[in-house]
C-alpha cells in the first residue's frame, strides 16, 4: 500500500472516529458510563504509550509514571486556577503566591516540561547504571515527590495536602481524544524515525548498539525525558478529567495499573497499549460493576458471592489469567494498522481460493 493511500485511510478513520464520538454525545446522556470510559481510557492510553516507549521500545524499566503525572497535573492546575478563585482554593495560604494564569494548552505543555526536567535530573546519575536501578530510583522519586507536594511549607504553591480545584476541565470526550491522539501520534512518529530505531537497538542488545556508534547514555536519557514529558501531559489531562486533584491520588498503585495496561496490551505495541487501556478502564469502572450489586437476581435466583468489592476480586483474577495465558499481551509487538487489516483480508480471500488446492501456509 502506498504511503499516500495509507495516510488517506488513517485520516479518514480519525475523522470517522471523531464524528462518531460527536454523534454519541448528541444521542446518549452525558452521564453515560461510556463517556467516563472513553475519557479516562484516552488519558490512560497516552500514559501507557509513554511508558511503553520506555519499557517496551527502549528496554528501560521505569516505575515513576505516577510521579511524573503528579508533576504534570499540579503544574497544569497551579497555572490555570482563575485568579479570582485562588483565595477560596488556597484558603489556608492567603491565595497562594502565583497570581496569574496560563492558557490551557500552554499549561498542559508546561506540565510536560516540568516532568521532563525532573526526568533529566534523575536520569543524569541513574542512567549510567544498570537498568534495574532506574526502576528503584523512579519508584523512590514518585514516593518522595508525593510527600513533598503535601508538605505544608510548599502550601503557597501546592496548597499542601488540600485539594486543588476550580481549574478548567473538559466536558466533551472530543478534547481528551484529540489531545491524547496528538501526543500518541508524536510518539509513533518518533518510534518510526531513526531515533526510534536506535531505541529498539538498545533494547535488543546494548553492547551491539554501542558498537554501532549509538551513545547509550544520550539515547536512554532522550527516551526517559520524552516518556516523562508525555506522562506529565497525561497528568494534566487527568487533572482536567477529575476536576480536582490532590497529591495523595498519585500512588504507586497508579503506576502499577499503567504497567498492567502496557503488559496486557503487549510490551512494544502502541496500538496494544491503546486498546488495552480502554478495555482495562471499561472493566474496572463499568463492565464488572454488576458484581458489586449484592441483590442481583437472575429470574428468581439470587446470585451468590456478590457484594461491594467483589468486582475487584474478579478483576484481579481476569488480569492474572490474561498475564498467564497471554504472555505476549493482546498484541505482542505487533501493531494494528490499516495496512495490516487490508493484508489480512487479502490473505483470507486468496487463502479461500487456494484452499481447494490443498495446503495454504499461514
Amino acid at each position, binding site marked *: 500500500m502506498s504511503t499516500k493511500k495509507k495516510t488517506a485511510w488513517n485520516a479518514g478513520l480519525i475523522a470517522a472516529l471523531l464524528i462518531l464520538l460527536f454523534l454519541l454525545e448528541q444521542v446518549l446522556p452525558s452521564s453515560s458510563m461510556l463517556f467516563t470510559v472513553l475519557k479516562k481510557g484516552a488519558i490512560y492510553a497516552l500514559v501507557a504509550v509513554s511508558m511503553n516507549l520506555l519499557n517496551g521500545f527502549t528496554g528501560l524499566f521505569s516505575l515513576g509514571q505516577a510521579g511524573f503525572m503528579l508533576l504534570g497535573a499540579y503544574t497544569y492546575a497551579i497555572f490555570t486556577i482563575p485568579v479570582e478563585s485562588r483565595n477560596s482554593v488556597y484558603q489556608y495560604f492567603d491565595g497562594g503566591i502565583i497570581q496569574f494564569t496560563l492558557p490551557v494548552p500552554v499549561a498542559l505543555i508546561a506540565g510536560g516540561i516540568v516532568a521532563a526536567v525532573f526526568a533529566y535530573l534523575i536520569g543524569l546519575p541513574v542512567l549510567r547504571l544498570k537498568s534495574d536501578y532506574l526502576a528503584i530510583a523512579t519508584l523512590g522519586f514518585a514516593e518522595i515527590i508525593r510527600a513533598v507536594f503535601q508538605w505544608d511549607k510548599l502550601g503557597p504553591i501546592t496548597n499542601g495536602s488540600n485539594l486543588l480545584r476550580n481549574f478548567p476541565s473538559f466536558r466533551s470526550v472530543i478534547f481528551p481524544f484529540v489531545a491524547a491522539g496528538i501526543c500518541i501520534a508524536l510518539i509513533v512518529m518518533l518510534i518510526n*524515525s531513526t531515533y526510534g530505531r536506535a531505541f529498539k537497538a538498545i533494547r535488543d542488545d546494548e553492547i551491539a548498539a554501542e*558498537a554501532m556508534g*549509538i551513545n547509550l547514555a544520550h539515547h536512554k536519557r532522550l527516551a526517559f525525558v520524552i516518556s516523562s514529558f508525555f506522562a506529565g501531559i497525561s497528568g494534566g489531562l487527568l487533572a482536567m478529567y477529575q476536576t480536582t486533584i490532590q497529591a495523595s491520588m498519585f500512588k504507586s498503585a497508579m503506576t502499577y495499573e499503567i504497567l498492567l495496561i502496557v503488559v496486557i496490551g503487549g510490551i512494544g505495541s502502541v496500538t496494544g497499549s491503546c486498546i488495552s487501556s480502554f478495555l482495562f478502564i471499561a472493566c474496572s469502572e463499568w463492565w464488572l460493576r454488576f458484581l458489586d450489586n449484592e441483590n442481583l437476581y437472575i429470574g428468581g435466583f439470587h446470585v451468590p458471592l456478590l457484594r461491594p468489592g467483589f468486582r475487584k476480586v474478579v478483576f484481579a483474577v481476569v488480569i492474572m489469567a490474561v498475564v498467564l495465558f497471554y504472555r505476549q499481551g493482546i498484541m505482542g509487538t505487533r501493531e494494528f494498522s490499516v495496512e495490516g487489516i487490508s493484508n489480512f483480508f487479502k490473505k483470507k480471500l486468496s487463502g479461500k481460493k487456494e484452499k481447494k488446492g490443498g495446503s495454504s501456509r499461514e
Partner: protein
Amino acid sequence: MSKENVLKVENVTMQFGGVIAVDNMNLEVDKGEIVSLIGPNGAGKTTAFNVITGVYAPTNGAVYYKGNKIIQNYPQGKMKKLYRGENPMTYTGQHAIAPTPDKITRLGIARTFQNIRLFKSQTVFENILIAKHMLRTSNIFTATFKLNGKEEARMRRESEELLHLMELDDVRDEPATSLPYGKQRHLEIARALATKPELLLLDEPAAGMNPQETLELTRFIGRIRDDFGLTIFMIEHHMDLVMEISDRIYVLDFGKPIAEGTPEEVRNNPRVIEAYLGGAQDE
C-alpha cells in the same frame, strides 16, 4: 605502498582481578593491510579487541588510531597493588583516556562479535539501517517530523546497497536471527560496514562455517578491503583462511604475543608450531 599506521597497541595489559588476559601486547596495523591475530582458546584475542573498541579500559597501556592516542590507562586504585604485568610506571601520572565504544566506532573503527550479536527483533534490513544512525545530521525534532527526508532516503539507499553486496537481498525482511549461521555473520559484517569504518575488526568471521563458505568468505574479505579501502584486523581459527589472505600475522599465547610475521614466517616459527599449530592439528 608507503606505510601509514592505522592502529597501534602499546604495552597493553588487561588484568581481571588476578587473571592477566592480555599481557603487555604491542602490535601495529598499517593502512590497507589485512592482519590476523591467532592463538589458542583463551589466549586473550577477544579481550584485546574489547580493549581496542573501548568495551574494557586496559589496566595498563595505550592505543593509537591513525597516530592519535585514543585510549590510555595505568594501574589505579585496587589495581595498584594487584598489578602483575609489565611497564606499570610508563603511563602513571598521565591522564587516563577511556572513551565509550560508541565513540570508538564514530572514530572509524567498526567490529563484529564472536558470539553473534544481531538486533534480534529487527529484520535483516533494519539491522543495517540502525548502523546508519550514527552518521545522521538530523536531530530528534527533524527526525520525528520527517524533515530529514533526504538523509533518511540516503540511509535506506546505502543500506540496500550493502544488503546487495552481502547477497542478503532475498532475506531482506526476514527476522535477523532466523538466518542460518553463515548469513548472520555476513549480516554482522554488513552492519559494521554501514558505519563507514576505516578499520574493521572481525572476531572469528568464519566460525561455524563449512569449508566452502570459508573459502567464499576469504575472497569476500579481500574484496571489501579493496572496494572500501579498508584496513582489516581479524581474529580467526581457520588456518587456510588466515594463511591465504593475511599480510601479517600476530600469534598470541597466554595473553602474550609470541610471534609476528608473514604467513610464511609464522608457519615456520618453531615457537608457534609448539604453542599453537601443533595443537590445532590434533583437534
